[in-house]
């Protein structure tokens, strides 16, 4: 039987085993069940994030020196850092933001409808993610041109290997912006980092860089994959598009369902602070384990028919944005972007036709999982 690459963890999860992601110098047992992932995500005393460059899997010490904040520290420091940046990451909850993001979608839809087809990844989702980020960070729209030029993944130029040159471009950009904001402060994200007070002092340059690095790296390929996957699904399932058109009130639940089903962030690492036994796999202190959101989101003990996309699924306690103290800061932005796409799509586009698609495959230490597309050509018809 071939393995379903949308859910390569199924057999292990259902037989209550783990799978191990095997890297050249590291074996990472994966926690696969919804309940167990949730418990581990909340138990930061055991499953620590206090590990620079080791929260992502594979680890990123080759592509950055800085500790990403607040994701790579534990409470209570984590909580204080998080409070500093929360006002920016909550901007999407302000009702004035939705029309701005919808306007970005509109521009891209108008362009798409003049063409025979567009590559949704490079020509729609990437520019949308980058332009939407200018609104989140209160930066000029022109900045997005440079961000778009970095491509889908800021640390990767293709495949799954990490790209040091590409990462250097981000480092230099952050350095320049922090310099600029120091000399000419405004109301933008970088200027606020200079103003922020942490435990009664200003942030160090390293802390500011760590926050900015996460901001640019974290919500990039994930949002692009979410939007691309959602559009790919609707192009292949015209009835679903029709369902949304007839009942736009399903846009919120559809967005949550796309986050669950496609789980753009497969998993995240934690470092064991004591010896653990993950379904028979021994984990020593300072070894890593994976909290596998993508597997938890297909757990049949929580989700009825987990392999089906149900646009009206409710309740939908998915872990697509993680769980616990480190749950995704960018979730409001991701939700707003996806909802805006769906809203304007059903109002303006009559049909989506899939022309060609090349599935992207994430290599997870010997396990393959479908995550988004390398390219996805769709015809948008008025």
């Amino acid at each position, binding site marked *: 039987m071939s393995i379903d690459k949308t859910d390569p963890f199924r057999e292990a999860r259902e037989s209550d085993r783990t799978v191990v992601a095997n890297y050249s110098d590291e074996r990472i047992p994966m926690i696969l069940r919804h309940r167990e992932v*949730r418990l581990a995500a*909340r138990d930061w005393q055991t499953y620590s994030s206090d590990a620079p460059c080791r929260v992502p899997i594979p680890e990123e010490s080759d592509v950055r020196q800085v500790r990403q904040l607040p994701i790579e520290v534990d409470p209570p420091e984590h909580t204080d850092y*998080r*409070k500093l940046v*929360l006002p920016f990451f*909550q901007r999407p*909850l302000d009702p004035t933001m939705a029309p701005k993001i919808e306007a970005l979608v509109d521009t891209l839809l108008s362009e798409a409808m003049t063409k025979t087809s567009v590559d949704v990844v490079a020509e729609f989702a990437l520019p949308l993610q980058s332009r939407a980020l200018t609104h989140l960070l209160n930066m000029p729209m022109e900045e997005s041109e440079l961000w778009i030029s970095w491509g889908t993944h800021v640390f990767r130029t293709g495949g799954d290997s990490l790209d040091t040159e590409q990462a250097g471009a981000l480092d230099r950009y952050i350095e320049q912006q922090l310099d600029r904001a120091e000399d000419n402060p405004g109301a933008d994200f970088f200027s606020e980092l200079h103003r922020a007070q942490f435990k009664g002092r200003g942030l160090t340059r390293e802390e500011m860089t760590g926050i900015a690095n996460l901001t640019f790296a974290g919500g990039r390929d994930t949002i692009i994959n979410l939007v691309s996957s959602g559009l790919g699904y609707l192009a292949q399932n015209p009835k679903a598009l029709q369902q949304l058109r007839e009942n736009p009130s399903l846009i*919120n*639940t559809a*967005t*949550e369902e796309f*986050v669950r089903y496609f789980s753009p962030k497969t998993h995240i690492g934690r470092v064991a602070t004591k010896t653990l036994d993950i379904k028979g796999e021994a984990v020593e202190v300072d070894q890593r384990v994976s909290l596998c959101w993508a597997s938890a989101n297909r757990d049949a003990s*929580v989700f009825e028919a987990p392999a089906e996309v149900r646009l009206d*699924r*409710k*309740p*939908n*306690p*998915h872990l697509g*944005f993680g*769980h*616990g103290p480190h*749950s995704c800061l960018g*979730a*409001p932005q991701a*939700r707003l972007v996806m*909802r805006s796409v769906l809203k304007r799509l059903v109002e303006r586009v009559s049909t989506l036709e899939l022309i060609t698609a090349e599935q992207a495959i994430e290599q997870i230490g010997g396990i393959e999982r479908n995550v988004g597309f390398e390219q996805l050509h769709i015809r948008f018809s008025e």
Partner: protein
Amino acid sequence: MPLVKYIQHDGSERQIEVEVGQTVMQGAVDNMIDAIAAECGGACSCATCHCYVDESWRSKVPPANDIETEMLECAVEPAAGSRLSCQITVTDELDGLVVHLPESQY
């Protein structure tokens, strides 16, 4: 239409008519009560519509299911009466319901 009283953390009160079948969350969001963030829009995915049902109403509100109970473990400062307001559907029996809102959902 049933009335729901939302008592903010600073003590200020809003009485809002909420249609039968709507949720307590929706009543707050539709009326710009910012203390209910409701990031996921009512799918029970986010735990940012946390509220505390007033003691006098706890026995009258149908209890939380397992999913909601687990989600509540992620809410900020869960306490007696903690509920996700997206999971409380307004009925005629809940006319006059009183909920207290937390200082923050984060």
